[in-house]
């Protein structure tokens, strides 16, 4: 009896499962997160406990790095090879950017003595984070998916299909931003050590000349502050990028949800045209501003922290 009931239940599930229900939460999370460890883009061995397989976000990291490196290097080499250093073409905005970061982010925080030491790092942060964020807004992999669906018809397990689960912002992965924050953390220690000496940098964490019981309270607070700042940098960038994408995807899922609710495609398309697409476009425009602001904030806060290690003032 039990076996027959179970069998009937299975058959019922199979019949209903012919058309999959649209699971909004699952689809959104799939789009925003990294490829799973069982299906990476390129399976590589595990060395010393670290799995080196190439996943979606790793590929985006490499693409962004290669793009930034090639563009900036070619522009600057061409500029330097001229007879007289007059900027032309893409060198104009690049020079304006370098001057902006040097004069309004690095110089007020780090001071004239160290500005040439720390401006390259801050520039790299800004350009890399900006490019990584903005490439996440361009639907590279969705266009690839359209191409695949209508033109190429690749196999189920090809690399094209693996790439397809949604757009990827490399900096939306908090591991990437944690690596950037780790660079800032080391830069703070290096800056303090170069300016004051390695031991003096740690002594500078707490103000001088206080009664000794206060130090017992102050030292853990300062150490915690030192660790919380890179953590906040990490989470700020990663959460801002992920949040924007989740909002856009959630609004676009209204189309599918309404289609399912009313059972007709017209409902979904109507909601899409009237509500989803304009709202998603508006939020994408807001995302462009957020991208710029987040790159600027990361760079500014790194400069402020490095400056605080160099010019100690309590």
């Amino acid at each position, binding site marked *: 009896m039990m076996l027959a009931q179970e069998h009937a239940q299975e058959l019922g599930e199979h019949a209903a499962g012919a058309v999959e229900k649209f699971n909004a939460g699952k689809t959104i999370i799939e789009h925003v997160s990294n490829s799973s460890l069982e299906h990476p883009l390129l399976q590589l061995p595990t060395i010393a406990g670290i799995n080196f397989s190439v996943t979606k976000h790793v590929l985006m990291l490499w693409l962004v790095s290669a793009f930034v490196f090639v563009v900036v290097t070619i522009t600057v080499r061409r500029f330097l090879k001229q007879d007289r250093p007059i900027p032309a073409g893409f060198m104009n905005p690049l020079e304006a950017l370098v001057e902006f970061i040097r004069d309004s982010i690095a110089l007020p925080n780090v001071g004239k003595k160290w500005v040439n030491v720390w401006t390259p790092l801050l520039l790299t942060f800004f350009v890399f984070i900006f490019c990584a964020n903005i490439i996440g807004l361009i639907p590279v992999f969705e266009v690839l998916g359209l191409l695949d669906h209508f033109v190429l018809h690749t196999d189920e397990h090809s690399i094209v299909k693996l790439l397809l689960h949604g757009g990827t912002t490399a900096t939306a992965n908090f591991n990437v931003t944690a690596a950037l924050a780790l660079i800032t953390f080391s830069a703070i220690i290096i800056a303090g050590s170069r300016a004051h000496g390695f031991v003096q940098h740690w002594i500078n964490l707490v103000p001088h000349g206080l009664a000794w019981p206060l130090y017992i309270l102050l030292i853990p607070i300062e150490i915690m502050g030192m660790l919380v700042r890179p953590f*906040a*940098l990490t*989470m700020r960038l990663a959460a801002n990028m992920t949040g924007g994408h989740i909002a856009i995807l959630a609004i676009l899922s209204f189309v599918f949800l309404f289609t399912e609710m009313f059972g007709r495609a017209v409902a979904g398309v109507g909601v899409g045209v009237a509500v989803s697409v304009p709202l998603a476009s508006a939020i994408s425009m807001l995302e462009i501003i957020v991208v710029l602001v987040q790159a600027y904030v990361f760079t500014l806060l790194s400069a402020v922290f490095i400056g605080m290690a160099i010019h100690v003032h309590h």
Partner: protein
Amino acid sequence: MEGISLAYFGAAIGLGLIVIGAGLGIGKLAAAAAEGIARQPNATDKITGAVNLPLFLLEGVAILAEVFALLIVLMK
């Protein structure tokens, strides 16, 4: 009440409180900045520079809190 319903309830109320806190803080900063610039227009750069840093720190705190609220909902 199930545990998961209470989690949704708590996260929703928490998110509302986060938005209130961030709104109040950033609003106060913006008001102070606007008033300062109105009194001395030639100090605009300095005022903007002084307001920038606390603004983004506060926004960062709000984002951090939103992430934790999301974690409350997603953790089983």
